């Protein structure tokens, strides 16, 4: 199953944040004026709300870059934007190892090859029950991994974040066992929605958002989307990933967004979209079920959460 352009993801032109904001306002105004002109007020209001509530309205740049979970720079949401400035992202080397024909150390440019980044507007659902919509720029992982010629033993891919307490103050505390490790099954990694991200809102990826290279797997909880990647390893065994080893009852390896499986301590049925006052329903696979549900056919997603 290869879907190049899922219906609800328009790789729209790269637009500055101001324009996004204005477009949104325009949409709202138009809907309100139009509806108010021809419809009874109650109905008009509902239509205006529906128009403003489309599920791919990008979260403002300011919010995307100041509300982050990135414990390497501290555990509060504002810590990363305050502390990540010190991270040196150039030059950057990515080590490729494990079950592949072309392991080695690659400069970031060589690792990415000649691929031009494309824009993808994705929903991001955090395991903490908040969400955003973010216009990323990146390269689908399935255009990069094959270049290293993974062997038949490569069943999983493991990603590791930089370990450098001098640059990452959060790593001086034992909040988590550093370095941060995440992983995907090979077919998840090769799915066309899986993106290696280098930019955001048409700009270079800010440090607090995982510069210079991060993963985005839009149908999984945000913690799967590992930041500041320095190592990619092909493995035969399922990788030991950070949150699921910290707390296996609460965070699984798959971590697919699933309103039917609650976090033991809080519900996953609803989420607060940043910018909204009230919660909205969480969608199975974060709304990407049509594209990805097939990957998990025959699996019990209550057990493999």
């Amino acid at each position: 199953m290869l879907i190049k352009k899922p219906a609800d993801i328009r790789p729209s032109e790269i637009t500055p944040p101001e324009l996004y904001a204005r477009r949104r306002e325009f949409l709202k105004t138009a809907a309100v004026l139009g509806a108010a002109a021809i419809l009874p007020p109650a109905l008009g209001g509902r239509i205006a709300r529906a128009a403003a509530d489309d599920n791919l309205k990008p979260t403002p740049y300011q919010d995307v870059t100041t509300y982050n979970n990135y414990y390497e720079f501290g555990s509060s949401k504002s810590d990363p934007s305050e502390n990540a400035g010190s991270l040196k992202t150039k030059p950057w080397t990515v080590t490729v190892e494990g079950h592949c024909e072309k392991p080695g150390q690659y400069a970031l440019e060589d690792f990415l090859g000649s691929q031009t980044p494309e824009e993808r507007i994705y929903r991001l659902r955090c395991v903490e029950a908040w969400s955003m919509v973010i216009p990323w720029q990146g390269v689908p992982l399935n255009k990069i991994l094959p270049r290293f010629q993974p062997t038949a033993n490569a069943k999983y891919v493991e990603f590791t974040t930089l370990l450098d307490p001098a640059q990452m103050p959060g790593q001086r505390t034992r909040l988590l066992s550093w370095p941060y490790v995440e992983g995907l099954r090979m077919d998840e990694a090769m799915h066309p929605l899986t993106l290696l991200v280098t930019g955001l809102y048409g700009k270079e990826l800010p440090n607090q958002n995982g510069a210079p290279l991060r993963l985005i797997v839009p149908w999984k909880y945000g913690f799967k989307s590992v930041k500041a990647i320095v190592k990619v390893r092909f493995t035969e065994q399922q990788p030991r990933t950070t949150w699921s080893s910290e707390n296996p009852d609460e965070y699984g390896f798959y971590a697919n967004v699933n309103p039917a499986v609650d976090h033991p301590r809080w519900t996953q049925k609803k989420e607060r979209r940043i910018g909204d006052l009230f919660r909205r329903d969480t969608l199975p696979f974060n709304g990407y079920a049509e594209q990805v549900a097939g990957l998990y056919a025959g699996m019990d997603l209550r057990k493999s959460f």
Partner: protein
Amino acid sequence: MALQIDRWFSLVVKPLVFVACLLPLAWLLWLTWQGQLGVNPVETLSHRTGDWSLRFLLLTLAVTPLRRLSGWNRLQRFRRMLGLFAFFYVGLHFAVYLVFDQFFDWQAIVADVAKRPYITVGFTAFLLLIPLAVTSTNGMMKRLGRNWQRLHRLVYLIAVLGVLHYAWLVKADLREPLLYGGLLSVLLGYRLWWWRGRGHSATVIRSTR
């Protein structure tokens, strides 16, 4: 002279403390008005009102030890006010949850309270505070007599539940809940020490008699 101090105390000092206790709310309202609550305003409101609930609970529990240590008995007269402000901020904290997190979805709230340990514990603490607030008047103190103090010892349990509520919801960084827990342990530990000491001296007095 003592009368004058009393008058000054109830006409100036107590109103000042009252206003000071409203400052956190005023600050939150100001931030809301200015749109300065951050990227996730509801979460900010929820966390800040929760913080102030715990802080006022700890302040209330600090009154008696401070009075004993300083010998300044008038401190006691702040205790009810601080306790009621703790209840006030807990009420706001619950209101944020009720309106913005659940939007009066009682079914979901019942499910939350039943299934989520941190909510069970927090909600219990909130419920237990209600009888304490209701019986905080002078009339009720008189009417309940010795039972009043028995009833109001519930505040120790409430504070423990409050800290537990906080500790149970964080993902990994336990430092702040542990700080509250540490302060609470000091305040409760002081009481244990005091009671044991008094029990001790009481037996000593009895035996020398």
